[in-house]
């Protein structure tokens, strides 16, 4: 019974964790520009991310060590410093974008420019981390994330033509706007397969004191949670395709994206969009902030844990305190949140290979995962994802310049 409750909570959390500024922005952009044609990218990204999240949870549950710990120990610090520095840079930009998402949501509702909201939002994030526990952040905030299911409801209200949706499952590259199409595909994959999820999830498993008895919970949470999360992403894409594309509205800013729910829900659609964006981004901002503190503390063997009082993990608490306020400055100076989002998603794609490569070694190392090591199927998925990540890493920046 307790495990069932944990699975249910975990699934809710994963929906919240899956959906962030990147997933919403890239899906909205894809739907408004190319209709249903990029559905395959969301499905592909979801399959990869489910497998990798399951593995980072399994690694943590069996070995009691987080992914970052294991990479540092097994590959040595001189390797780990590469994904560490890369991830901190990407986290910094993503956190700026997530804070931007919350600020835009507040701007949509109040009319006060997003720049003014950046510091108050950063303060709210910090206060929750400073005072809250992991359970509060994991469960409290993510329950609110269920508001994003409004995109799924809207999808049903709009009655999309099923044959057209099914056609989007096939990766067909259009003749026109090819580079833009490919850029959005890369950004979607970058938004879904984000390394911070793996580091965060495995640290969360250690915070929640998972052991080998939780492997079933882990599988259910990773599979169903991320699966539901991707259904919401698909909802965003389909709604954007149904509402924005026929009117020739391309998502150049979040204000335009906010119109997509007004057709099914009228004025309330506008509010619901703002609420979904704000809550999803706020939840993700908490995760990215914590993730940075996790990977930094774990790099040097410091005491860490959101369940510890700040004085028991002084360096850990200090890292997230400084980081969240620094990242909010990106919004204070007025960088466009949507541009920052798309740019950070492309950059995520660039750092993917060094973040994913260690999975292949760690998930086959008996010292860490014992008898629960990868079978041939899981290993094939990892190898495929590594190959995919290399392709993404090479094409991301050229496509950004040509088609972004």
């Amino acid at each position, binding site marked *: 019974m307790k495990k069932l409750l944990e699975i249910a909570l975990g699934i809710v959390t994963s929906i919240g964790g899956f959906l962030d500024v990147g997933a919403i922005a890239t899906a909205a952009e894809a739907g408004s520009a190319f209709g249903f044609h990029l559905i395959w990218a969301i499905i592909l990204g979801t399959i990869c991310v489910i497998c990798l999240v399951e593995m980072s949870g399994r690694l943590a549950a069996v070995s009691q060590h987080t992914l970052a710990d294991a990479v*540092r120990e097994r590959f040595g610090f*001189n390797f780990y410093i590469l994904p560490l520095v890369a991830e901190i840079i990407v986290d910094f930009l993503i956190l700026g974008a997530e804070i931007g998402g919350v600020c835009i949501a507040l701007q949509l509702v109040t009319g006060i420019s997003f720049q003014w909201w950046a510091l108050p939002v950063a303060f709210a994030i910090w206060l929750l981390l400073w005072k809250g526990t992991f359970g509060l952040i994991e469960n409290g905030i993510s329950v609110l994330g269920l508001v994003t299911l409004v995109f799924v409801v809207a999808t049903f209200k709009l009655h999309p033509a099923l044959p057209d949706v099914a056609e989007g499952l096939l990766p067909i590259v259009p003749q026109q706007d090819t580079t833009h199409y490919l850029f959005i595909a890369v950004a979607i994959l970058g938004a879904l397969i984000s390394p911070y999820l793996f580091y965060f999830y495995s640290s969360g498993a250690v915070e929640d004191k998972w052991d080998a008895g939780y492997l079933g919970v882990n599988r259910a949470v990773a599979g169903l949670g991320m699966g539901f999360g991707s259904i919401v992403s698909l909802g965003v894409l389909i709604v954007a395709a149904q509402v924005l594309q026929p009117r020739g509205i391309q998502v150049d800013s979040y204000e335009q994206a906010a119109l997509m729910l007004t057709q099914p829900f009228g004025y309330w659609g506008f509010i619901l969009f703002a609420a979904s964006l704000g809550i999803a981004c706020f939840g993700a901002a908490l995760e990215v902030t914590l993730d940075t503190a996790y990977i930094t503390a774990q790099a040097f063997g410091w005491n860490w844990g959101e369940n510890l009082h700040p004085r028991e993990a002084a360096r850990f608490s200090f890292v997230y305190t400084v980081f969240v306020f620094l990242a909010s400055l990106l919004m204070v100076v007025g960088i466009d949140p949507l541009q920052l989002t798309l740019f950070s998603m492309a950059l995520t794609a660039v750092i993917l290979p060094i973040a994913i490569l260690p999975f292949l070694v760690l998930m086959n190392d008996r010292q860490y995962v014992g008898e629960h090591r990868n079978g041939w199927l899981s290993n094939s998925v990892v190898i495929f994802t590594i190959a995919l990540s290399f392709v993404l890493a090479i094409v991301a920046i050229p496509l950004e310049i040509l088609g972004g």
Partner: protein
Amino acid sequence: MDVIRDVLDNQIVDRNQRKMGKVDGIVIELRDGQPPRLAYLETGATTLAQRLHPRLARWVAAVERQWGAKNSEPYRIPWSKIRNIGIDVEVDVDAEQTSALAYEQWLREQVIKRIPGGS
């Protein structure tokens, strides 16, 4: 046991399971006419920086001498104090009493405790 693979860069925990840094270096003693002996574990920013680049190590040492909470000597744990080497390295000391946590303690007293809710 493979010293580089299984010990270097692993987590060090004290006798109360408190995390106190990681194995940044391993000191081996060369003895005349006898096989070399594992002498100490080292943990500290200068040792770690030394492994990345000697110039970085000099720079870290200079910064620590100037502003650091302790001198730039890394903390050494004699091999005889090691209780257990699994994935973690467990040592028979009390972390709070060592210089390994000097920065943690400085930050706790000077910064964290002064923020409301931090004490």
